[in-house]
């Protein structure tokens, strides 16, 4: 890569504006019909940001309602719709596509030295399918919402719910196809489109983690599609597929639902882990510790994730012996996850660490993900789960992994590659301030929920006994801080599009092919196909950062 960096040295004469993927063509049509993976990544970014706001508004209203034991804001029925909307939108329309469809789309071809993904038209199609799913979901939200929770458990969803369960399920069904196309595209791209010299063990770890994610996309998503289709058929025909009175088994839905939805949480966290590997190495200016361990742990997580779904069903009537097996298997996931955390920590050791905004997010990720992961072990143990299942402890656990993990890494990744995406730098001081606000707000929101759950407060209720009020108020206060923390980056990132400091190809002095081409890159990414001559993260011969280290 060091060789290519010189080959690619660009006409960086700042006098005349350079041609790049953003200014190569103008107009709405040039965006809506684009086949450029970078533009499609940005289309996804706008879409999921909007959906994040929708899901965030629902969360804000929930936290406001929980300020008072009797419910401060909404009717209990409305509260049910709020948490369902929050869950469905955040899981299926934000977290699942978050890193893969935005950063993944943008970076995979750049990182492996390709001109585009293998199937650009399918890539654009996947965005349109995703938008269709979003619109159907928004239609459901606007016309009365859905109140089943994001898990759609029958027989409530199939027989009793009076809300528009069918359309909500179809929204997820549609969005699922965009995941499948994305996963397919990525697997083929990573297999077939690598630049000369880019062997599997020279790939950035971000690519490995996205490869593992794509495997889950491909093997898991069709199952949720068929499951929701079965639910839709049952809801329309009442043929008894999930109705015990007619010989059906509601638990079968849970099995098939979690066959996808448990691996789906690794769809959300694996790409984040890939981002963190990039950030940690870049800001400690060291090679990753144990490259192959980190790479293979991604694949191990992807495989094991399919063997553990029954731990969501310990108290739902699943057979005791099946529960035992699932409990034991669930502990296995801790091993590759811990390998990653240890290796990141070992990478930091004796590194030349600087604390730019992306690094703050990365460090926050390691701490919060560790808490989220370890509390997961409490829930994987059959006996403690009986006590904790269905309480706020579970809510806190998965928010530590999903928000403290996935969203932190998403924010870190967006900040890290923002100069590559836009050619401009955000105001660093504000960025570091926002990272801190998010970290504090997040812990204030969700740590009390661990305590609440342990004390026995069940999730998904609009009301609670008065003794829980202090902790709930604390949590709601934290949510306000968190909301502010998310608004600040939205403001300064948009601001930076026009007023941000213009930077060169590699502001952070990072390694990786994507930093050797101009910022923003050309439509075809590289002037000529790069030839890779060294391993990833060879920071001993990395270029000096353009921006001052902090």
């Amino acid at each position, binding site marked *: 890569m060091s060789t290519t960096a010189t080959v690619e040295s660009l006409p960086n004469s700042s006098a005349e504006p350079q041609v790049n993927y953003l200014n190569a063509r103008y107009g709405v049509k040039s965006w809506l019909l684009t086949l450029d993976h970078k533009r499609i990544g940005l289309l996804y970014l706008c879409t999921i940001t909007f959906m994040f706001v929708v899901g965030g508004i629902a969360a804000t209203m929930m936290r406001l309602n929980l300020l008072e034991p009797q419910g401060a804001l909404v009717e209990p029925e409305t509260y049910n719709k709020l948490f369902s909307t929050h869950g469905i939108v955040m899981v299926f329309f934000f977290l699942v596509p978050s890193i893969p469809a935005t950063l993944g789309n943008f970076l995979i071809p750049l990182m492996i030295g*390709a*001109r*585009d*993904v*293998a*199937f*650009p*038209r*399918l890539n654009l*199609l996947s965005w349109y399918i995703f938008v269709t799913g979003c619109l159907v979901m928004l239609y459901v939200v606007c016309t009365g919402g859905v109140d089943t929770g994001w898990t759609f458990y029958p027989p409530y969803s199939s027989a009793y719910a009076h809300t528009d369960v069918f359309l909500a399920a179809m929204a997820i069904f549609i969005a699922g196809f965009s995941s*499948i196309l994305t*996963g*397919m*595209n990525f*697997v*083929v791209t990573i*297999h*077939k*489109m690598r630049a000369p010299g880019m062997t599997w063990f020279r790939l950035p770890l971000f690519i490995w983690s996205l490869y593992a994610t794509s495997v889950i996309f*491909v*093997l*898991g*998503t*069709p*199952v949720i*599609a*068929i*499951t929701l*289709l*079965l639910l839709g*058929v049952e809801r*329309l*025909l009442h*043929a*008894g*597929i999930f109705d015990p*009175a*007619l*010989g*059906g*088994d509601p638990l*079968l839905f849970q*099995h*098939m639902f979690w066959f996808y939805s448990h691996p789906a949480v690794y769809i959300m966290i694996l790409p984040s882990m890939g981002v963190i590997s990039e950030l940690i190495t870049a800001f400690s200016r060291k090679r990753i510790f144990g490259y192959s361990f980190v790479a293979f742990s991604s694949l191990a997580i992807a495989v094991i994730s399919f063997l553990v779904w029954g731990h969501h069903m310990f108290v739902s009537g699943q057979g005791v012996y099946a529960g035992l097996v699932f409990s034991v298997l669930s502990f296995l996931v801790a091993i590759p996850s811990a390998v990653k955390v240890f290796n990141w920590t070992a990478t930091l050791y004796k590194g030349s660490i600087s604390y730019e905004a992306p690094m703050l997010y990365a460090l926050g990720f390691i701490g919060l993900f560790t808490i989220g992961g370890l509390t997961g072990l409490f829930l994987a143990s059959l006996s403690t789960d009986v006590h904790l299942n269905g309480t706020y402890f579970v809510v806190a656990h998965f928010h530590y992994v999903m928000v403290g993990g996935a969203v932190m890494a998403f924010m870190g990744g967006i900040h890290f590659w923002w100069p590559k995406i836009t050619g401009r730098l955000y105001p660093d001081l504000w960025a570091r301030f926002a990272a801190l606000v998010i970290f504090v707000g997040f812990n204030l929101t969700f740590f009390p929920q661990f305590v609440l759950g342990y004390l026995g407060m069940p999730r998904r209720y609009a009301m609670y006994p008065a003794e829980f009020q202090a902790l709930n108020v604390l949590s709601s206060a934290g949510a306000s801080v968190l909301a502010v923390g998310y608004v600040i980056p939205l403001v300064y990132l948009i601001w930076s599009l026009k007023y941000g400091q213009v930077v060169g190809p590699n502001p952070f002095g990072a390694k990786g092919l994507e930093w050797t081409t101009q910022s923003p890159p050309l439509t*075809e990414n590289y002037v000529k*196909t790069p030839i890779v001559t060294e391993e990833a993260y060879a920071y001993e011969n990395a270029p000096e950062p353009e921006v001052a280290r902090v």
Partner: protein
Amino acid sequence: MSDAALAHGDNPTGFAHQFEDLEQQHDAGRMGMWIFLATEILFFGGMFTAYTVYRSLHPQAFLLGSHILEVKFGAINTAVLICSSFTMAMAIRSAQTGKRKGAIIGWLIPTMLLGATFLFLKFRFEWYHDYIEHTMPGFGFHYKPEWGAHAPQVQMFMCFYFFMTGLHALHMIVGIGILLVLTCMAARGRFTSQYYAPLEISGLYWHFVDIVWIFLFPLLYLIRY
């Protein structure tokens, strides 16, 4: 799905800019289709899982349900699909060996006709019959006295039957659509012994749909004991 195969047919050689050469493109397309088929295996697999669970829970009802179906139509349709797989394979072979476009079209059209025959038999003699006989769930399903206490589960079997064969028929319709496009492409002389990837990739899809039926036939029709 088929876009993987058909998307890049813009210029006469069908070469897309993001690839280094035609071989890489051909390889990528083929691999994309295999991965798509993997998703299809899991998609139909979800139904097979549900089917397996309920058949093990209600063997007697599934036996009664299977007797509603007529084996002869299932068997004939299996043969029809196998024939269409054969003609599809021959269509690809004639492109591989650089035959004239007439030869390719000459194999594609029978493939389509056989697919249409399958659908015609299925809809006209099976589904329509079930509708008349009130054995179509959701369209006036009547419990028959000979089913006794098993009647609700017989209905569940029929639900699976229509769901599985319905999804299969949907795939067939998509497949016939793809074949139409391929026929047009062949008629314009797009395919050569060097460039026949769309044909080959669509063929994979067509054969896969055949395989699904190969499993549906014994699972739905052939429960006699």
